[in-house]
């Protein structure tokens, strides 16, 4: 492969707008779902939280299930772009840009839920410590306040990391585009990048340190999400295994989502030469490994519940497996523990339809996991007189599917207007394959 091939193929995806019909229909469909989200959120703001299925005892419901699911999906992007970068895993180069974009969009979807779930979203800024006349101050010992800092930091850092990485590629777009106004747009976005020696010198330094910062950050974010649960006294939540097992689950689910997105992308845009079967295989191996971390988490929960001798913990775990939400629990077990085991077979790992379906199943399984964690712990906690059941409403479903629309809309815009593969990194890898980035 020559470096001009990289430029031509990747920038061509934007400048020549191939697969126009697919893009138009796909974007229209995604945008329709996004409109549904605005309807659902608008009605929520108008009528209040009563339109959702939440109530006591299950006050968290879909909003938190979906929040944790989306934020977990984001983690694979940072894992690929930061951790694999520091580990010199060269195969990350052709997928890091796309997965970083996926991270940003997943975090955007996740961020909507806690805001809407506040009930009075206009007061969200009360979580921020600022001098006010009301005598308000956040409780810094609360994991929910930690969560606000963690998620907003994560969103900001993901955006910054992504944009800095985009600068050289935006300059390539500027220099390859024909219409003057397109050149101007990319020219402004790339801030005037010229590829000068001092640009690269500071850029490389910054990039490696940002990767170093993003690495503990990605671990901290889902640990803190795990602590939102673990710091309560609720049986089924109050467990020290939550932070690590949440991080493992996030990467598990995130890699599954990368596969779900990348498999059609490489096929539709003919990127098989960049995103090869080896890339897919590596991702499936990460999925297999993190799947075992998740399975270990399930096992530990059961073991500690049994070992503790605590009747409430005993009951919560029995209730998960045999209670009214047992289908969700067994669905989760089949999707997250049983299904990924097919990836032990090298032949199956290299069969793309199998990989795609497994990844879809894992995404479903990880959604069920959050459903099981949130709903089953809340609906029957201590006093049977305070028990209750949770059912979703159409507004819950519309909001969830609607955030899917937001996610897809942003992805369609991304592949339409920005280079989906990091060209400057690919150029270096093609021209000087022996040099470690």
């Amino acid at each position: 492969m020559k470096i001009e091939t990289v430029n031509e193929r990747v920038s061509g995806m934007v400048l020549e707008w191939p697969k126009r019909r697919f893009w138009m229909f796909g974007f229209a469909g995604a945008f329709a779902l996004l409109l549904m989200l605005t309807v659902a959120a608008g009605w929520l703001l108008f009528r209040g939280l009563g339109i959702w299925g939440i109530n006591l005892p299950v006050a968290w419901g879909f909003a938190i299930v979906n929040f944790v699911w989306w934020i977990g999906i984001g983690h694979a992007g940072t894992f690929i772009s930061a951790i694999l970068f520091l580990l010199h895993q060269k195969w990350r180069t052709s997928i890091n840009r796309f997965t970083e974009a996926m991270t940003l969009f997943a975090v955007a979807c996740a961020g909507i839920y806690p805001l809407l779930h506040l009930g009075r979203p206009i007061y969200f800024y009360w979580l921020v410590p600022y001098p006010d006349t009301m005598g308000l101050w956040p409780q810094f010992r609360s994991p929910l306040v930690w969560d606000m800092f963690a998620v907003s930091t994560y969103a900001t850092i993901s955006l910054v990391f992504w944009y800095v990485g985009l600068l050289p590629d935006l300059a390539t777009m500027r220099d390859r585009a024909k219409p003057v106004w397109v050149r101007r747009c990319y020219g402004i976005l790339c801030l005037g990048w010229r590829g000068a020696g001092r640009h690269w010198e500071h850029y490389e330094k910054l990039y490696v340190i940002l990767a170093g910062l993003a690495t503990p950050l990605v671990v901290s974010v889902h640990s803190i999400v795990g602590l939102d649960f673990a710091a309560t006294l609720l049986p089924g939540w109050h467990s020290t295994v939550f932070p690590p097992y949440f991080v493992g689950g996030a990467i598990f689910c995130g890699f599954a989502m990368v596969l779900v997105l990348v498999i059609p992308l490489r096929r539709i845009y003919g990127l098989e030469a960049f995103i090869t079967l080896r890339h897919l295989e590596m991702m499936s191996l990460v999925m297999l490994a993190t799947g075992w971390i998740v399975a270990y988490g399930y096992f530990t929960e059961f073991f500690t519940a049994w070992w503790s001798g605590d009747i409430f913990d005993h009951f919560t775990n029995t209730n998960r497996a045999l209670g009214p939400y047992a289908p969700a629990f067994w669905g989760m077990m089949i999707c997250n523990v049983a299904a990924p085991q097919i990836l032990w077979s090298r032949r199956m790992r290299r069969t793309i339809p199998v990989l795609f379906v497994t990844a879809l199943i894992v995404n479903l399984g990880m959604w069920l996991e959050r459903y099981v964690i949130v709903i089953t712990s809340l609906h029957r906690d201590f006093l049977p007189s305070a028990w209750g059941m949770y059912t979703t409403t159409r507004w819950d479903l519309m909001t969830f599917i609607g955030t899917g629309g937001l996610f897809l809309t942003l992805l369609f815009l991304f592949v339409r207007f920005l280079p989906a593969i990091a060209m400057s990194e690919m150029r270096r890898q093609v021209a000087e394959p022996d040099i470690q980035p």
Partner: protein
Amino acid sequence: MKPALPYGIIGSFVSADELRAAVGAARSSGLGDWETFTPYPVEGVEPPERKASAGRRSPVARAMAIAAVLCSSGAFALQEWGAHDYPLDVGGRPLNSWPAFIPITFELTVLGTALTGVVTFLILAGFPRLHHPVFSVPEFRRATQDRFFLLLRSSDLAAAKQFFAQVGAETIDEVEA
């Protein structure tokens, strides 16, 4: 009025190795300041002023280290101060519950350090600067694609052009000031 001097002479090379060879020749020729423009980071072509500072820490790293210290202590102090100035007595637990302040200290450290790093990078690289004399050379568009450029800021244009011809540049252009 004197006619404006050109900004310099720019030559292009087809590979990073050719650029490295040309940079080596430029170093020993004493033709004046020079700068490289490449489609990906190329090692071994540091500009002359960088040579002198070799071995010193990158200013980006230094700024980020300072920011990390300031942000972490600032974030921790904010929480400690808040805990004492706005005391919340929860079952008689101590106000100085410092372990609970670590997560936000960490998050704000990462946030402040990363943003400082980006701002430092933008300042050092001179961004945003949308126009630059080298853009007047049509061939320069390939600097972000597949050619490796060397710019000589020499006042002796003839010598600079001859230098490029000797080291085998693919194209040689005058850059208007």
